[in-house]
Structures are given as structure tokens and as C-alpha cells.
């Protein structure tokens, strides 16, 4: 017999989900904090986009402008002793988890004071203090690393969880299925977060998979899952809360599919509207599904904010990010010895073991 999983349906319909989000009685101060974090991520990536356009930033930058609610909604339920892994599009995951703004900006500039000391750039971020364990550009490669962190958390038995962010394209790599089977078979506290933005570079998901919902793989691996509007920070946060609670209670892994859309190109600052099926017509509609605007409008109805406040917050955040950016611009580059002294743990020069 054939079995048909529910597809994303309206969640993938650019004309739907544009209205202000339901806040389900979440306290305004918490919603304000989430709004400000999303605004910080948005502004930071706009500054990075300008840096790339101006030729100041050289490393490839994959921007998550438009997808901020996923990281913020997930991190709302995490602590700094949880372990978070990202991929090539991880500025938002790093910042939402508490990664230092200066460390990110200095790193994309290749500076010694960058969060990875200039060795990795945008696609290799690290912030031990916040629990952001690392991100890499090889698609899906950190998914099993996070399962390993989940194995360690289970051994520690202190209720920590591991989180792995990956995209809809990453679900086409076999290692994701190996990782999900392992996490399910050994009941590990791992949250698989799939940011389904319907694209893998220039290819729409319909050209790569028989169905546009990735949660079907969680079901196959007997992993509880939630499929949510990724641009609704409250929905993301509530779904994460349920899945993370189970994981902390030792009931095994969870899977969150957050449907969203990137406003800029696969890589770089341009909008790439010409690239890939349907982008030209869909992008303007998806911009109405702006996670920041939808939350701000809800807060306005709640009387927690008004247009003026918002305006002042945007410019304050822009001023702050700009000043940190300028500080990072002036910072020094790594010494040339760094290439050989950071391969091995004790800083020993490779090959150059002084016999």
C-alpha cells in the first residue's frame, strides 16, 4: 500500500500566514526580548550584507534575513549548558543562543579577535560560553556531532539537550537518517531542527524530494515531531518547549520542522529573484510573512509597543551594531604562525615537532 504524509499545505503557501501572530498569553516582557533579539539578528545581517557588497567582507556569507524567528523561538527554551550546532547559514543560531556580537563581526572580517580567531569566517562559528559548539559549511555534517553531544548529555544525566539546525536540503544527506536512527534507538536528548525554507541553493524542494514536508522522516524514525509556521516565534517556541521537555525527561529525541523563507540569495546579499523556481513571484509575498513585523503588530495591539518605540529601537540597535562593526574593522589579523600552531591541541607546529 502507499502511505501519504501530510504535505506542508498552507504553511508553504506564500499568501498565507501573513497576519500578526497569536501570543497565547505569553508575557509581554518575554515577547519584547524575543522581538529585540530578532531585530538584532536582522540588523547584524544587514550590516554584514553591506560589508559584503562593499567588498570589506570576503568570506562567503549565507544570510538568514527573514528566518530569525526559528533560532529565537528555539533558543528561548535552551540554557548555556545545552549544546547547539549549526551549518552554513548560522549567524541567527549563534546570536540567538547568546553568541557575542563582536565575535561574529570580527570573525567574518577574519580577525584574530573573531569568535574562531579568524580561522573559519562566517561558516565556522563557535561560542563556548553560550553553548554554541560549532557550525560548518558541509551540509548536514554537524547533525551527527550534535547526536554525539546528546549522548554525552545522557551520560552526564544533568538534563541537558543537544540541538542541531539543518535545512530541507540537508535532509537529502544520508547521515541525517543515520543520526535520527541512532538518536531514536538509544533515546538520546537531541532536538533536530529543520529550517525548511523550500530551497536548497537554486533548487525548489519539489525538484528534489517527492513531498515538501521533511517531518515524514521523523515519523519513520519513531521520533515525535511538530510542524510549525517558522515565522511565528511563539509557535516555534511552544513547539520547542514540548519537544525539549520530553528530551530533558529522558524520553528521547524530538524533531521540529519550521517552515520559513530566506529573503536574500542562497549566498551573499543579493535577492537572487531570478534564481530558482517561483522566487520572483513568492519573495514579495513571503516578505509579508516577516517574523519581526508580525510579532511587532501583535505587541502593538497588546499596547506593549508603538510605532515610535519601534523606530527608536531599530536605530538604537543599528547604532550599537555599527559601533561594534567599526571596532571589529580596526582589530588585528592573526599572526602568520597561526596556520601551523592551531592544527593540534598543544599549539605544536605540524610536522615541525622539534625532535
Amino acid at each position: 500500500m502507499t502511505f501519504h504524509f501530510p504535505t506542508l499545505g498552507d504553511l508553504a503557501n506564500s499568501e498565507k500566514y501573513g497576519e500578526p501572530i497569536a501570543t497565547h498569553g505569553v508575557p509581554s516582557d518575554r515577547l519584547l526580548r524575543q522581538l529585540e533579539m530578532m531585530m538584532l539578528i536582522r540588523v547584524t545581517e544587514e550590516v554584514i550584507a553591506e560589508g559584503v557588497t562593499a567588498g570589506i567582507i570576503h568570506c562567503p556569507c549565507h544570510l538568514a534575513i527573514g528566518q530569525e524567528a526559528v533560532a529565537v523561538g528555539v533558543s528561548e527554551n535552551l540554557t548555556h549548558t545545552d549544546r547547539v550546532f549549526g551549518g552554513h547559514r548560522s549567524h541567527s543560531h549563534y546570536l540567538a543562543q547568546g553568541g557575542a556580537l563582536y565575535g561574529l563581526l570580527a570573525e567574518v572580517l577574519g580577525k584574530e579577535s573573531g569568535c574562531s580567531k579568524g580561522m573559519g569566517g562566517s561558516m565556522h562559528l563557535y561560542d563556548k560560553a553560550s553553548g554554541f559548539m560549532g557550525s560548518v559549511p558541509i551540509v548536514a555534517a554537524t547533525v551527527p556531532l550534535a547526536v554525539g553531544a546528546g549522548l554525552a548529555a545522557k551520560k552526564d544525566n544533568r538534563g541537558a539537550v543537544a540541538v542541531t539546525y539543518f535545512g530541507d536540503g540537508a535532509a537529502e544527506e544520508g547521515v541525517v537518517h543515520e543520526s535520527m536512527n541512532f538518536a531514536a534507538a538509544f533515546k538520546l536528548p537531541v532536538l533536530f531542527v529543520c529550517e525548511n525554507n523550500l530551497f536548497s541553493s537554486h533548487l525548489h524542494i519539489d525538484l528534489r524530494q517527492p513531498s515538501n514536508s521533511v517531518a515524514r522522516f521523523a515519523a519513520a524514525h519513531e521520533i515525535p515531531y511538530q510542524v510549525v509556521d517558522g515565522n511565528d516565534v511563539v509557535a516555534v517556541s511552544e513547539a520547542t518547549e514540548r519537544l525539549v521537555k520530553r528530551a530533558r525527561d529522558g524520553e528521547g529525541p524530538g524533531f521540529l520542522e519550521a517552515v520559513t523563507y530566506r529573503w536574500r540569495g542562497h549566498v551573499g546579499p543579493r535577492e537572487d529573484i531570478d534564481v530558482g523556481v517561483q522566487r520572483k513571484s513568492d519573495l514579495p509575498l513571503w516578505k509579508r510573512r516577516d517574523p519581526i513585523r508580525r510579532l511587532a503588530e501583535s505587541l502593538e495591539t497588546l499596547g506593549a509597543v508603538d510605532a515610535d518605540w519601534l523606530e527608536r529601537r531599530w536605530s538604537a540597535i543599528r547604532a550599537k551594531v555599527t559601533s561594534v562593526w567599526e571596532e571589529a574593522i580596526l582589530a588585528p589579523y592573526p599572526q602568520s604562525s597561526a596556520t601551523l600552531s592551531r592544527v593540534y591541541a598543544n599549539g605544536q607546529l605540524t610536522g615541525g615537532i622539534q625532535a
Partner: protein
Amino acid sequence: MKQTETISYCAAILEGFTYLLEKHPDVFVIGQGLWSPWYVGSTMKDLDIRFGRDRIMDTPVSEDATTAIAAGASLCGYRAIMVHPRVDFMVLAANALVNQIAKWSHMLGGQSHPKVTIRAIVNRGGEQGAQHSQALHSWFAHIPGLRVVMPATALDARDLLIASVLCDDPVLYIDDRWCYEVEEPISAIDVTPLELQGPKVLRKGEDVTLVGSSFSTQLCLKAAGELLSHGISAEVIDLRVLNPIRYEVIRESVKKTGRLCVVDGSWRNCGMAGEIIAGVLESVHPSILLDSPRRITLPEAPAPSSKALEAEYYPSVGHILNEVLPWFRPSKSSEIYSEKGNSHETYL
């Protein structure tokens, strides 16, 4: 294609694809980014429009399966070309390449041959970092059953691609984005069978033998030009075929010059540079050598991202001159060229 039309390495690859797709209906191409305007540069521009999306197939992000899928089709009457936009992605297909494709003929008694060519692109620099910069040709040259070729010139970029696809063995064809703008006048297509191809002397010389492949050959040619201004005549040999290796052209050159310097874009330990040195020295009497052989490779470290470090990471013409000139002016200090920067001589 007129007799000697000047063409770029990048355009030459497109010409190779076009020739194969026009002349050979059993040829089809499969890989990531083939319908994208930038993924594989302009080397496959509009092939999907011209030959249809059934013959130019863009794929899900599944390197191991897609590489074996290409090989499976090549066991059933098709000549498949598998494209990996980066050598780094091909690492995920190591099982398909090394355990299956390379051994298929041998383990089934030479009765079945995967007529598959795997094209991978070296895409480095631009602060892309450790996982988006690798050149792993030495790795795959280590595997019997996997022919490995690396074009350094526009002529080879086209004709080695054609020879690889028309060869009944699995071939790994690796091109390098840093060669894309290299131009040269190239003659009509010459389809010498791949089995008969080997290293070529691109520039005659008497005093030193420089051996390179792909972009490293371009470095050797530039270095030879500068050495001439020092009165030193360098012979430049382009390896072209890295597996199986033929040593006789290189050996004869070293017998003539007595000095061997090998330049390679991969790492030193078990790398191609050391292989050339060992392959030559094991078949000549040491007395032929006027000096110990030299090799120029990447430092023994992953590629750093920051341009301050990246600028010193990749082998340069300066590195070649710093190794070769001391042979001819033993008294002078070896620190002649500023680009030397991060000398590889930190090794013991």
C-alpha cells in the same frame, strides 16, 4: 572550431561537454548545481537548455548515492559524467568511488566496466576556509582502478575531458577554478585514448626540471620565465595523468638537468610531490642528482579563512624561486623572495 582559436580553460571545458553531448547520445551529465547560473562557473552554461534536463540532471544533496547512481547507469550502456562542484563534497562519495567504482572491473573478473567520469572542481581562496578549499588528487591517485587526470591548459581542459569520457574505465577529472581564465590558441579536437596519455614537456630547459599539475603547472611556467632572467634554463613538465603514473618523461629530464623540483597543490605527507620524487629517484642512480630534490606543497595545516593567513597558504612563484635559486647561487641567502613568507622549511 577554427584551427588555432584562442580560448579560455573555462570555455574549453564547455566545448568538451558540448562535443561529447552532440557526438555521443549515450553521454549524460548528473550533479549538483547544473541548472544554476553560478555553481559550476560558466563551464556548463546553458547545457541543460540546449540538451534538456533529462541529459543534464541537477540532483538532491546526496553525493554518495548520486555518484553510485551515475556508475550504475554506466554499467547499463550509458557514459555518465558525475559532477561535484567542489572536491570537498566528493569526500562524501568515497565509498562509491574507492570501494565500488575503482574495484568493480577487477573484482568481477574484468567483465564489467563502469564507464563513468567523475568531474570535481578545486574551488579555493576567497576566505572560503578549510572545508571549501581542498585539493585531494593525491588521495584518489592512491587508488588502483581510478584513473586521475588534471588539466593545466585550455587544450587539456577540453581534450582530457573528452578522452576521459570516451575511456571505458572510471576516470576522476579534476579542474581548478584558478586556471579558468588561462587562455591559449588550441587546435582541433584530438581524441588520443586516455591510456596512451602521460606527462608532457611544456617548456624545454637544461638546468632544472620543474614538475607540476593543474594550477601548479602554471606556477612552474611563470617561475621558468623568471628563472630565465637569472640565466637559468628550467624545463617544465605537466603531469596531466596522476594515476596510473608514467615516470619516463620526468626521469629523462632529471637525467639531463640533475635537479628536480616538484610543485603540488595538495599536502606534503603521502602527496603527489613526494610520489614524483620517489618514482624518479628509485629508477636513476643517485649520482645523477647534482642536489637533493625539492618539493613545494601546502603547509601541513587545513586552509585558514582570514586573508592575512590565506595569502601565505598556497604555493606561489616566490616559493619556487626560493627553492631553485640557491642551487645556482649557493652563497646567497635563500630569503630572496618576499612572497616566501610562511616558509615551508619550518619542517625538520
